[in-house]
């Protein structure tokens, strides 16, 4: 992932060379087609777009954290349809680069050299123009240690902190722009081999983590979780609105520091695995994956008022 120092260096060099636009590429960029590189560059070179974000065609059942949490949250709160809000390739205008460099310097000054920046959110707050560019397939480098616990905590924790810092922006109602790119209706292959394991993990957490979940989630969410824990692995599914409210409750708990933040994000992992299990079952039943993810994102949008109400009056568990 792009580090704060990358943005700082990119802007410094661009300013020295009086460049008009910047194209930032991460590891694995050799797999991007030349046409994709050209389109990314042209998007910011035209002058009207400040941030060009690639839309990848990923292998089946990839980028599930993005599909479950990052994309729906970013879409609902920052009113942007960017499918991959945290990418390792970007097209930047100079003013966008300057803004990201400023944020990067802030992280560097706080000795947070590995912090994540969220360019899409920064662009939304600054009212800069964001565009999405189809780039096709790309080799996305996987972390050396693919520990879901560490990855989820890092990425989700960073987004939660970002949401907390930009609370005054996303609490206002905003209109979501119309979709420009077509939905990918490809049916995926069966990935349900891992579902029983994930459902078991969720059931174990449901019986052991109630004392922690009850500090974060309202009673009706806990009851709904109890109901779905009784479902068979083949029929297992996490309703979209339940998932949306769970994430919103965790965002509020992150802000209020209801429990230690590390513990909070650790307690989210079994719930995320439950969502993944449900998603795999849904796609195995014939629904295109992107359609289900769009339904999840729509549920996040519909329940945004729940988050705003809980953010402002955190002591009341709204129904």
């Amino acid at each position, binding site marked *: 992932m*792009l*580090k704060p*120092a*990358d943005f*700082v*260096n*990119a802007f*410094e*060099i*661009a300013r*020295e*060379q*009086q*460049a*008009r*636009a*910047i*194209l*930032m*590429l*991460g*590891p*694995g*960029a*050799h797999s*991007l*087609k*030349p*046409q994709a*590189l*050209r389109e990314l*560059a042209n998007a910011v*070179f035209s002058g009207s777009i400040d941030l060009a974000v690639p839309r990848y065609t990923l292998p089946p059942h990839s980028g599930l954290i993005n599909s479950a949490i990052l994309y729906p949250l970013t879409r609902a709160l920052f009113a942007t349809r960017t499918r991959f809000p945290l990418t*390792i390739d970007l097209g930047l205008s100079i003013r966008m680069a300057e803004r990201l460099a400023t944020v990067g310097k802030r992280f*560097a000054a706080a000795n947070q*050299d590995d912090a994540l920046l969220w360019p899409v959110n920064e662009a939304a707050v600054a009212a800069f123009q964001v565009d999405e560019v189809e780039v096709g397939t790309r080799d996305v480098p996987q972390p050396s240690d693919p520990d879901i616990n560490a990855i989820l905590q890092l990425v989700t924790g960073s987004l939660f902190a970002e949401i907390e810092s930009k609370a005054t922006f996303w609490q206002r109602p905003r209109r979501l722009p119309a979709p420009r790119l077509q939905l990918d209706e490809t049916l995926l292959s069966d990935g349900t081999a891992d579902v029983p394991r994930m459902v078991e993990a969720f059931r174990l957490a449901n019986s052991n983590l109630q004392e922690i979940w009850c500090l974060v989630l309202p009673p009706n969410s806990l009851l709904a979780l109890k109901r779905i824990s009784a479902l068979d692995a083949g029929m297992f599914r996490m309703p979209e609105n339940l998932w949306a409210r769970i994430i919103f409750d965790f965002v509020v708990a992150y802000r209020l520091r209801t429990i230690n933040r590390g513990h909070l994000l650790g307690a989210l992992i079994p719930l995320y695995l439950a969502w993944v299990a449900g998603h795999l079952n849904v796609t195995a039943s014939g629904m295109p994956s992107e359609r289900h993810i769009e339904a999840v994102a729509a549920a996040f949008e519909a329940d945004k008022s729940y988050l705003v109400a809980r953010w402002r009056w955190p002591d009341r568990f709204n129904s």
Partner: protein
Amino acid sequence: MTTENSTSAETATIDLTTADLLVVGSAIPPEEFEAVLANLAEAFPDCGTTAARSQCARKSAHH
């Protein structure tokens, strides 16, 4: 167009001419960097390309 590949936070000073588009590679391994340059050259056949790979000093630990 100018291409840069840096492997850490600091960047050595490089003497370059001005460029319209700056392409910055972050932590791209050297073997992939050449392929990226080739793709860029194919993507922008009508542009001149200046490429540099900087070996940057790592930030000292006591910072």
